[in-house]
């Protein structure tokens, strides 16, 4: 029994951390935050691509590193820890995974090498209005290979070259690949809670659309895609939550009040202990998701939902209580606390909110118990 990452994977992780500590200090994140015209750091994107990280889980045959999802998980944790302001998730978790799981040989040949090389940015266009993703949400239509409809919000839709779109064909939801550079596509950048990650409203008026997978499989493919992304996002979340705890701890040790470090007061001690406990539980749930993802185990639906719920709640708690621990300075623009507070929300919503995932989890548990 071995429920931990291998030494090679841990080495990859520490290398990734070193790299990001050098290339992605929070000053780089703030540069994107403070610049209304940018929603990601193009230089960092190139540097990350040059590391080959985008192709971590892509077979060598398609220009990837041919490593696995466990390796992608450790990189995800470091990207989350660094608050990396790049469209990595949209490209590596959504576009690449959609191609790997549903793409035809031709589609893989056409796109995966570009993904691995960082030549394209992807995005996942699923929802169209408030509320969880449901079949009824999907109103966009594909007729004769042309897509018509509106999707919002679409994370990274403002900078993506290609979108994985959920749309109806002959009344049935399907998954489609749509290039965003061409005709019939209008995009409107959105202001969001976390300006360090972009989002857009995409309006399609007869844009050419190529189906991924079989007709009518759309919802099933989307669910499986969301499960895979949920695991990878969980690692970004525990990465961020872990760093938020470190921030709180460092501040609590160095900040004095009434002649003592505030970390010597039980209110702060127990607050940080609570963060720690939630983080550890989230980490364990994320590891299990990683195992299920890597091995294609039948536990994936339950493991992914558990990882998602646990990580989303842990990050939100860590981010808001880290800020609280900082006191007055904590809610100033100059302190980094709000960067984590914003990202915790962004990551908690991007693949669907906790509420929806709790519902998925219980539904899966009921299925499992019934079986």
């Amino acid at each position, binding site marked *: 029994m071995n429920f931990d990452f291998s030494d090679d994977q841990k080495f990859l992780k520490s290398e990734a951390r070193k790299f990001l500590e050098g290339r992605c200090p929070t000053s780089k994140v703030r540069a994107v935050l403070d610049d209304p015209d940018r929603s990601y750091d193009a230089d960092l994107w190139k540097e990350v691509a040059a590391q080959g990280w985008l192709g971590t889980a892509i077979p060598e045959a398609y220009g990837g590193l041919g490593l696995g999802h466990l390796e992608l998980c450790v990189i995800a944790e470091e990207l989350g820890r660094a608050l990396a302001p790049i469209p990595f998730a949209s490209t590596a978790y959504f576009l690449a995974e959609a191609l790997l799981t549903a793409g035809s040989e031709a589609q893989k040949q056409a796109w995966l090498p570009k993904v691995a090389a960082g030549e394209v940015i992807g995005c996942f266009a*699923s*929802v169209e*209005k*408030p*509320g*969880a*993703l449901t079949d009824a949400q999907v109103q966009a239509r594909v007729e004769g290979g042309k897509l018509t409809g509106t999707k*919002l*919000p679409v*994370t990274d839709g403002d900078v993506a070259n290609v979108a994985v779109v959920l749309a109806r064909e002959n009344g049935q939801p399907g998954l489609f690949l749509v290039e965003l550079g061409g005709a019939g596509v209008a995009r409107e950048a*959105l*202001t*969001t*809670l*976390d300006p360090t990650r972009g*989002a857009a*409203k995409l309006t399609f008026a007869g844009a050419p659309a190529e189906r991924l997978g079989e007709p009518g499989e759309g919802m099933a493919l989307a669910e499986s895609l969301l499960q895979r992304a949920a695991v990878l996002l969980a690692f970004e979340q525990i990465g961020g939550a872990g760093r938020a705890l470190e921030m709180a701890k460092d501040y609590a040790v*160095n*900040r*004095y*009040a*009434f*002649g*003592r*470090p505030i970390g010597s*007061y039980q*209110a*702060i001690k127990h607050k940080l202990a609570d963060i720690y406990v939630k983080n550890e539980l989230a980490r364990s749930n994320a590891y299990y998701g990683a195992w299920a993802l890597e091995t294609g185990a039948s536990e994936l639906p339950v493991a992914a939902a558990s990882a998602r719920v646990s990580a989303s709640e842990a990050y*939100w708690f860590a981010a*808001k209580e880290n*800020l*609280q621990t900082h*006191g*007055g*300075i*904590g*809610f*100033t*623009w*100059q302190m980094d*606390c*709000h960067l984590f*507070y914003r990202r915790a*929300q*962004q990551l*908690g*919503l*991007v693949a*669907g*909110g*906790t*509420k*929806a995932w709790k519902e998925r989890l219980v539904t899966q548990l009921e299925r499992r118990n019934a079986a």
Partner: protein
Amino acid sequence: MDFNDTPEEAAYRAQARAWLQANAPKGHVRDDEDPAGLKEAKAWQARKAAAGYACITWPKEWGGVGGANWQAQIFAQEEANFPTPGNPFQIGLGMCVPTIMTCGNEVDKQRFVGPALRGEEIWCQLFSEPSGGSDVAASRTRAVRAPDGSGDWIINGQKVWTSGAQFSDFGILICRTDPDVPKHKGLTMFWVDMHDPAIDVRPIHQMSGASGFNEVYFTDLRVKDSQRVGEVGDGWRVSIVTLMNERNAIGGGSSYHRQVMNLASSVATLAGSGIKDAALREKVADWYVQAEGLRLTRLRTQTALSRGQTPGPEASIGKVVTAPLMQDVANTAIELEDQFGIIADPSLAPLSAMFQATLMSAPGMRIAGGTDEILKNIIAERVLGLPQDVRVDKDVAFKDIPTGR
């Protein structure tokens, strides 16, 4: 128990309402604190002062009408029904000027009370410091006698979290005058002219985008010894007078419960009429009993006040209940919108934009005017009478207190 006015209360209410109908500003009213808004606020304050509605409970000699608490409450309730300008005078009339009236010298009282009451001059409170946080007695801003023997003081240092400093005329400033005695004994209070070029006011940019607070820097600020409020070394006692009022002003979270109610009903709107989701229904119930409980606790406090009794616990529990509550309501609402909740564009998603604004201001609410943690200490020690935590900073010279640096 009776929510109706007594004949006496009804009479006063009718009189106040009539006066407000005749005198309250008509049409659009600026409630912000830009120059134009300040002008309107000052004019309205002046009119209230002239009619004896500015500081109702203050004694006549200071321009009040020696009225009762219940009268002030009724006027406030009635005034709330009219569109009135912002109130940049709260800190001055609620904390600073009362401090001058209690601890200041005759000359200062005569000089300052009237203009402040009439809204001609605005005051700010200069207590908190970067190193101090909730620990006002740890103030490091240094005041030393001028070497020229004039008796003047030279002040250097920095204050922070000062509301309204950018438009204040005067401020009360607590300084360290003797670092060789225990922290509470080496402080002295002064009033300062905020227009002095030796004072530099810089707005603090908050995560919410707002910047209502300021940093205030003092570089060789020279003040006369006559600007001292209270004795040398007596600054802590003087600041207590000010802070007692502050808890009531801030701790009460006067309108928070209304904000929570509005938020909660917006969540209901979001969920559509007749919420289906049982989880959300239970949350709405939780929010309601807390916000309503707080509103009613305020009514108990008002009753006590109007009976001339000391205020109840409400002042201390208001904020500690509502600030985390609002953070929870906003987070729940955004979660309900799922992916859509990330959108901050009011035109595309008016509700989620509103909830996000709350989400970004809630952290400040949980901290400004006493963190959740400090307020719970206050409840435990002052209300429940639990023993103080161990204090390692009390019986040593201020300069010897550990600071980690």
